């Protein structure tokens, strides 16, 4: 796959196509059960929201600020050699956890846990040992994703009501459990989530690995100029959705104020990106499978 050892990162060619293929293949045709969330869940609404690519990117930006989480990715995964494959695998995993039947989701989670077992080492920046299976790191990754879904839907998607925010946090507890976080450690309410995220902040810093990998993600080489144009909007939306302390850690400039027209423009970019995504084979059918399940569940 990768022959470019001298070049630290492979290009981002095929980002949309491979993510789309991974997504389409992970949405089942005729599942034995409705999985861990089900058609009536807030989780399904959040993950099918137009804004979800921005939520994913914002979550990655936050996750990378944990030096130990970042070190695990940087030193072990094939992230540098095949970043697109890594992102596609992540989107496949999320789609599986969301939409696949329980047995399939459990098998996917078991696979991830097995891979995590081998990921251990010492972070060169802090000198601290890490293990990818450490519930503390897994919880950080989990919580940033959940919080990003809520924040980004409010800014660029269909905002969740206050009760639905709590419900979403509670629903997502099982996702953390699946990768190995004991249930008791996982925040189950919005307030609990906020308190947890605040408690981790003293540990966060922008290591060179974080700076470098996020720079790659924000401006992926090899994306053609046309899609790069849209990607600029997606990433600017993600940066705008970050807490200001996170932007400061990275040293990103203050984003343009999110006026109504700026927000509309970013939503348009999301719509165009989604249109491209929809043009990839299998994506429309996958969405229709989800929608039909939602409708079937709604029927009395």
């Amino acid at each position, binding site marked *: 796959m990768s022959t470019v050892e001298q070049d630290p990162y492979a*290009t981002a*060619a*095929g*980002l*949309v*196509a*491979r993510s789309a293929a991974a997504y389409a293949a992970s949405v089942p045709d005729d599942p034995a059960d409705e999985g861990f969330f089900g058609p009536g869940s807030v989780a399904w609404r959040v993950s099918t929201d*137009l804004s979800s690519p921005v939520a994913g990117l914002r979550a990655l930006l936050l996750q990378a600020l944990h030096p130990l989480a970042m070190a695990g990715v940087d030193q072990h995964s094939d992230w540098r050699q095949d970043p697109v494959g890594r992102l596609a695998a992540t989107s496949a995993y999320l789609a599986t956890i969301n939409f696949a039947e329980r047995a399939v989701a459990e098998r996917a989670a078991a696979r991830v846990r097995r891979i995590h077992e081998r990921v251990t080492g010492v972070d060169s920046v802090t000198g601290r040992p890490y293990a990818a299976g450490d519930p503390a790191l897994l919880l950080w990754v989990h919580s940033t994703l959940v919080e990003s879904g809520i924040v980004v839907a409010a800014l660029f998607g*269909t905002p969740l009501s206050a009760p639905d925010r709590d419900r979403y946090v509670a629903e997502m507890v099982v996702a953390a459990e699946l990768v190995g976080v004991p249930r008791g450690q996982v925040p189950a309410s919005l307030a609990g989530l906020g308190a947890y995220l605040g408690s981790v902040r003293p540990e966060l810093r922008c290591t060179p690995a974080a700076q470098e990998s996020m720079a790659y993600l924000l401006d992926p080489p*090899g*994306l*053609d*100029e*046309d*899609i790069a*144009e*849209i990607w600029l*909007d997606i990433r600017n939306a993600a940066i705008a959705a970050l807490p200001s302390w996170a932007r400061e850690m990275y040293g990103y400039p203050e984003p343009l104020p999110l006026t109504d*027209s700026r927000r*509309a*423009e970013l*939503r*348009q*970019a*999301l*719509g*165009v990106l*989604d*249109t*491209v995504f*929809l*043009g990839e084979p299998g*994506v*429309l059918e996958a*969405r*229709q499978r989800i*929608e*039909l399940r939602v*409708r079937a569940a709604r029927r009395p």
Partner: protein
Amino acid sequence: MKRLLTTLTIGGLIAALVLLGRRLWRPGSAGTTRLRVARGTAAIQLAVRGGMRYASSAPRLFAAAGEHRQRLRTDLALQTAEDVATTLGAMKGVLMKIGQMASYVDDGLSPAVRRTLSRLQDSVPPMSGELAAQVVTEELGQPPELLFDRWDPEPIAAASIGQVHRAITRDGRAVAVKVQYPGIAEMIAADLQNVALLRRMLRITAPSQDVDALIAELRERVLEELDYRREASNQRLLAAHYAGHPTIHIPGIVSELSTRRVVTSELADGARFAELAGWSQAERDLAAETIYRFTFRSLYDAHAFNGDPHPGNYLFHGDGKVTFLDFGLVKHFSPAELQPLIDMVRYLCVDEDPAGFRAAMVRAGFLIPDAPVSTDTVVEHMAVFYDTVRRPGPRQITGDYASAVVRRFFDVRSPLAQYVSVPRSYVILQRINLGLFAVLGELTATADWRAIAEEIWPFVQGPPSTPMGAAEAAWRARRGGPDRLPA
């Protein structure tokens, strides 16, 4: 390669919309001009066997429309205005409209663009019967079940921003009722108002000085199309203009049942474009002759041009009789706008005066004054567009010819490329080249196009050259009166 495909998808969509995406033009292999027939909004507009003259009884038409019902994903039907917003908001409605406008040039688009456009159309399910009824009620003041003698709550066809229902009016006419998605016009208008993104995307495919003009043109056209009253008025005028024509039929509008978001017209039924593949070449030639006459009679006599020469917008009845559908994209020309076009064809094809032709091109704004290219080069570049009418005699229009015309239009390597442009008011006319010839090429139609053109050219007004021409001349003599439609 994958990367390239993705690129072409976005850039292509945008370029297609303005028909200026030279960068994206990838000539198909020779002879592969195939028009998309089954899908596409216009394609979808219901076909109507029409009018009084080809009349069958209303119940029979109603039944025939049901038999031709397009298969739609009613299991995914949009049930609320919010569903519509989710499906068509955030530029998707705009992109779909653009896709519709560009769909008949899809031979000029890359497979990736074509795929994206058709996927986008596929991604929009019909409205539920309840939602459609709600729009009808809002627009016409009564629920359709009360308004009509018979109303089929299930649509018979989709349209990009609406769908078509069959009905029978209280006075017994079988009609096609096109109902617009609720809120779609407002969403598209808002997206075309906030143009920062569109402007940035267009800069990639078009010179920057053109971008604002293109957006303005796009906005005007799309907003026009969103107001069904305009379509109704165009169709009403053209139906009146062609009333009694021997082969051209335009279904009448039922004015009292037509509003901004609902347009009701006579139901018609006939053979679809795809079915012509099984017809004799003689029949296909006659159908092509009617389409050709309709296009240029409308332009020269009525100063109106239907910018949607999509194969789905025709119904065929044999003997050259054609029903024309969908008048959402009609451009009216002022005499001042038309004159340079007339001069161009006259100088090139009749007077054989290259310098006069070039001067007319400059007057029209197609060519910048004093471009450092020889007049021979100008003529050589442009001649392909006039190829069918420069010389007399029978001539077959092939898919190859249609492709060549499109290729030339998008040819960036031409020595002329940097000096030519298409002024805003003529953008729509390029659809003759991009759409009409594609349709005629698909029919592999043969005729003496020059002789037919001479009948129609106002500066020649030649004698009838075919039996259809003779019948048309008799019709014109009968109808008398001013030819020109009020704009």
